[in-house]
């Protein structure tokens, strides 16, 4: 079977799902089963593509290149490379998990909800697969509407505030990015008479440093809001708290990766000189994110907010790894992206499960759950340890390699006299202490001590719940114990990232 065709099928199958849902719009149960079916098929297709992905080949695979608006140089260009292969797998994997997780908690407008999930899945997948900037931007913007509606319709009490905040914040960044990308394409057309939105062509644009700085600023703003990096993070806690469980899982599992993916695929490679010039500043923000996120997670009383702030902290490691420009750091960053997707998804699922039973998010309302719900607690402990970065879990792989990269980059600079990056990297290591501190504080009141929980007696996890959590746990341990086969697939992309960002692309001075 032609792999490019399968890739397209995998991308578009959620749209087919939406059409089918329109037919099934009166039947809640059918809507659910249909969505699960569609997303499972998507996952199967994605897995097939994953196995067919050639780790030894550089560049794009399974490419589809159809001219769309030739006058502007826009084409429908999608393909898989080391950058998106893991993220596509993650998205496809989380799709069925999310829908199965939402089984009980959504009871109004069920077909609409599932349609939103499918559209969101389509948009996210498209954003990862797009290799044309116009196409990418379309998918990037397209992600906003379903998410907006998911939070706004099925969310909690302050959902309108949260979803409007989320939307406006993200859209603001996107508008700036639009202006920047138009300018970029224009600049490329003027200097090299190539009118194209394709990434491969844009990577060759030569821009003076001042222009690069401004454009990087616009792109970085948009991506930094999505990551989220401090100080642009305040939409996340509200969005997570008010979103329904499924929304939180998708948000934490996949949407947050968009920001880091954007930096990795676009922000830094498109403007390498500016990126390198601003590395200390960006690194500072990354380390601040790590520490700030952890400190705030320490004093939260809403269990969803704890995990929200922990996400901010974890993604700081990704940025650190990317900025190191060392192979080990970049690989670590990619692994941390995937790991965070799995771990945060699991934690939000667990929180959703306990919320379904007890209807409260206050940490103080809970205690001694290990006695009341042993299976739940075992899963909670596993995800907590993965979050803390215990070796044998994926969290360790990501954090360790990313930090190692940051150090490997910082040490020669220190020897050459520039000690600031080394200080930053050392502060980042403190993040592991804080990570243990806030997660174990969470676990302490939550799992241990005298038993307290509203609406007892409580039922432990059902087979469905165990199934989805179990799948996540297996993935977490697989990435923690056997990351080699996975990292081989991203190696070429990591090297490409390195070479793109390390090569200067300032226009040559006129003689």
């Amino acid at each position, binding site marked *: 079977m032609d792999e490019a065709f399968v890739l397209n099928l995998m991308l578009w199958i959620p749209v087919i799902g939406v059409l089918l849902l329109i037919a099934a719009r009166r039947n809640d149960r059918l809507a659910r089963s249909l969505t699960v079916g569609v997303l499972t098929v998507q996952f199967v297709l994605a897995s097939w593509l994953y196995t067919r992905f050639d780790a030894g080949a550089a560049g794009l695979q399974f490419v589809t290149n159809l001219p769309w608006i030739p006058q502007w140089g826009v084409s429908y260009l999608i393909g898989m490379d080391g950058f998106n292969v893991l993220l596509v797998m993650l998205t496809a994997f989380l799709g069925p998990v999310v829908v199965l997780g939402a089984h009980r908690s959504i009871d109004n407008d069920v077909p609409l909800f599932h349609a939103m999930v499918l559209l969101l899945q389509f948009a996210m997948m498209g954003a990862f697969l797009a290799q044309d900037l116009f196409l990418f931007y379309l998918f990037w913007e397209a992600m906003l509407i379903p998410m907006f509606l998911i939070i706004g319709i099925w969310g909690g009490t302050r959902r309108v505030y949260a979803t409007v905040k989320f939307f406006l914040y993200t859209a603001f960044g996107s508008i700036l990015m639009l202006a920047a990308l138009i300018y970029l394409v224009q600049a490329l057309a003027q200097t090299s008479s190539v009118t194209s939105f394709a990434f491969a062509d844009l990577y060759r644009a030569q821009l003076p440093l001042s222009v690069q700085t401004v454009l990087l600023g616009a792109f970085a703003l948009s991506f930094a809001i999505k990551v989220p990096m401090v100080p642009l993070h305040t939409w996340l806690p509200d969005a997570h708290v008010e979103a329904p469980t499924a929304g939180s899982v998708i948000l934490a599992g996949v949407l947050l990766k968009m920001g880091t993916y954007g930096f990795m695929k676009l922000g830094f490679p498109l403007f390498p000189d500016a990126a390198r010039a601003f590395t200390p500043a960006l690194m500072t923000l990354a380390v601040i994110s790590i520490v700030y996120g952890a400190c705030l997670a320490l004093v939260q009383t809403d269990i969803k907010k704890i995990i929200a702030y922990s996400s901010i902290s974890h993604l700081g490691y990704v940025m650190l790894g990317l900025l190191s420009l060392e192979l080990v750091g970049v690989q670590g960053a990619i692994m941390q992206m995937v790991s965070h997707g799995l771990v945060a998804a699991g934690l939000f699922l667990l929180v959703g499960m306990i919320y379904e039973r007890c209807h409260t998010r206050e940490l103080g309302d809970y205690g001694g759950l290990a006695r009341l719900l042993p299976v739940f607690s075992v899963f909670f402990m596993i995800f907590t340890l993965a979050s803390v970065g215990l070796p044998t879990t994926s969290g360790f792989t990501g954090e360790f390699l990313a930090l190692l990269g940051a150090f490997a980059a910082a040490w020669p600079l220190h020897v050459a006299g520039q000690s600031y990056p080394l200080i930053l990297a050392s502060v980042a290591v403190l993040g592991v202490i804080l990570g*243990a501190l806030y997660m174990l504080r969470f676990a302490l009141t939550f799992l241990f001590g005298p038993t307290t929980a509203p609406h007892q007696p409580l039922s432990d996890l059902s087979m469905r719940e165990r199934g989805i959590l179990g799948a996540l746990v297996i993935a977490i341990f697989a990435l923690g114990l056997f*990351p080699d086969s996975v990292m081989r697939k991203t190696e070429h992309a990591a090297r490409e990232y390195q070479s793109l960002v390390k090569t200067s692309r300032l226009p040559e001075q006129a003689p």
Partner: protein
Amino acid sequence: MISLPHTLAAIVLLPLMGFLLNGVFATALGGHRFGNRLAAIVGCGFPIAAFVLTVNALLTLQAGGYAPLIEPLYRWATIGDSTFDVTFYFDRLSAIMTLVVTGVGSVIHVYSTGYMHDDKSHGRFFAYLNLFLFFMLLLVLGRSMLVLFVGWEGVGLASYLLIGFWFDDLANARAGKKAFVTNRIGDAGFLLGMFLLYRACGTLDMDTINAVFMGLAGSVPVVSASLVGLLLFIGATGKSAQIPLFVWLPDAMAGPTPVSALIHAATMVTAGVYLVVRMSGIYMHAPEASQVMAIVGVATAFLAATIALVQTDIKKVLAYSTVSQLGFMFLALGVGAYGVAIFHVVTHAFFKACLFLGAGSVIHALGGEQDIRKMGGLRTRIPITFWTFVIATAAIAGIPGLAGFFSKDEILWYAFASSRGGSPWLWGVAAVTALMTAFYMFRLLWLTFLGPSRMDHAVEHHVHESPLSMTGVLMLLALLSAVGGYFSIPHFLEAQVPLPAIVAEREHYERTLLVVSIVLAFSGLALAALMFGGSAERPERVKRALLPLHRLLSAKFYVDELYERLLARPLVWMSEQVLLRGSDRFMLDGMLNGMAALALRSAGLLGRLQTGSLHLYSLFVMAGIVGALVWSWRHG
């Protein structure tokens, strides 16, 4: 001796099997399908099998002329040209450590079958113990620092789970959390050291790193050995409870006694010592780091001993004693006597495990009482426990002939005379500590077992000797405490880790110091007998005379309170007030909500233009037209 291809992997993975089996089938997770007996058999069987395999591996090693056995398992990651592999490594040092871990580990497992017999989470206990063993074996058998670190963190996890084993009492869970977090602080230093080593040597394989630092490979290391040494030592202070990170160990006594014996006496806490010996190639070229280690070690030993003098909980005395003995080990490491430190690790494992398990037997006999002020008169009631406790106490006090005497004496000797940092000052402090050790241990013995009974009546009725599963182990460990010192481990290890040279001028003091050691041991015994052998009046008078000192020591020098005030509370305050309220809510969200309010306000203002009055609208239209006309007339 049978040559098995994957012996080392088997040694490591067998306990993991035990964990998985018991973890799933003997706990609430699997509906308690295994009964107590089956869980016990599984739980003890795998460690014993591992021990047998270890002995076999040792024989194989011996037969091969002590060339290290290297067993690659699989590749963890490939980064460019360098690889991170999971490989097992077995040399003399590994052999000793693994024997201790599997051997003492197995017997403690057997002891637990008796001690935890009536516990409702019996299966979970054995699962966790096996998990611990798995990680500990990873730690000592790993070739790369990465594998060691996996084991290092893993034993921290097992410790967390086991300290907080009886988690219905929040205080126990809190103690577990304290242990994990304190360890993590040390781990941050460990990670920094590892990163630097990777940068310098391009690999994390410990044998290669040692070679690089010894200059054998011909390459000069990029990183200062002392810096790396200090960073790794910080990691060791966390795991091995040295100043300033020792505070978790006394709290860890909240866990069941076999846990205290295995993890917090015999094995996990010695991981730091193992690490330093393993990386001796670095430390031999890091005089500053070694000096720091020696000073911190002896200071810890001294401090912990002073606290142990006044503790009233039987396990707390032993906990502080452990911290103190670990200090001795680091003192030995600091003066370059690596083999001697390992020697003390082994003898300490024997007598401390015996002491802890003996304490467990006492607690078991007294139905849960741990306060030594409420004991006494147990000598005849639980004789086996008593006599094994006596032997172990004598061993730790350094009574000649027993294991502890040999190892401690060597430490004192090298502290005095090592050419790599030994000094009379170090010896002096250590000697005083040894005296205190003898004193507080015999105090413990006296108050617990001898003299008239101070037990509560209800408790006294139930006093009974422990079952064979417990007493058998006690006897075995007591025997090892007695004879374990005759096998000279330092000389066994000398081929691998050479002993430091002796400063020429001090060489002739050896006899003298030996005599002093013996005198100290017996003095401690005598002092304790004097104080506690008679009426209760004597210790009371001394206590009243030195009341402020007593209070300071009882409060453990207020270290916990200090950390709380200086670190914990400010961190929470800063996170709460500054970051959450100040920054997140006030500034960032404030700015956002402010901008939104501004937009709303200005929209409201602009909205006032929409008066709904057609008149006004037409006026605007006309004004606009006129203005446009004028403008076009002006600008031609």
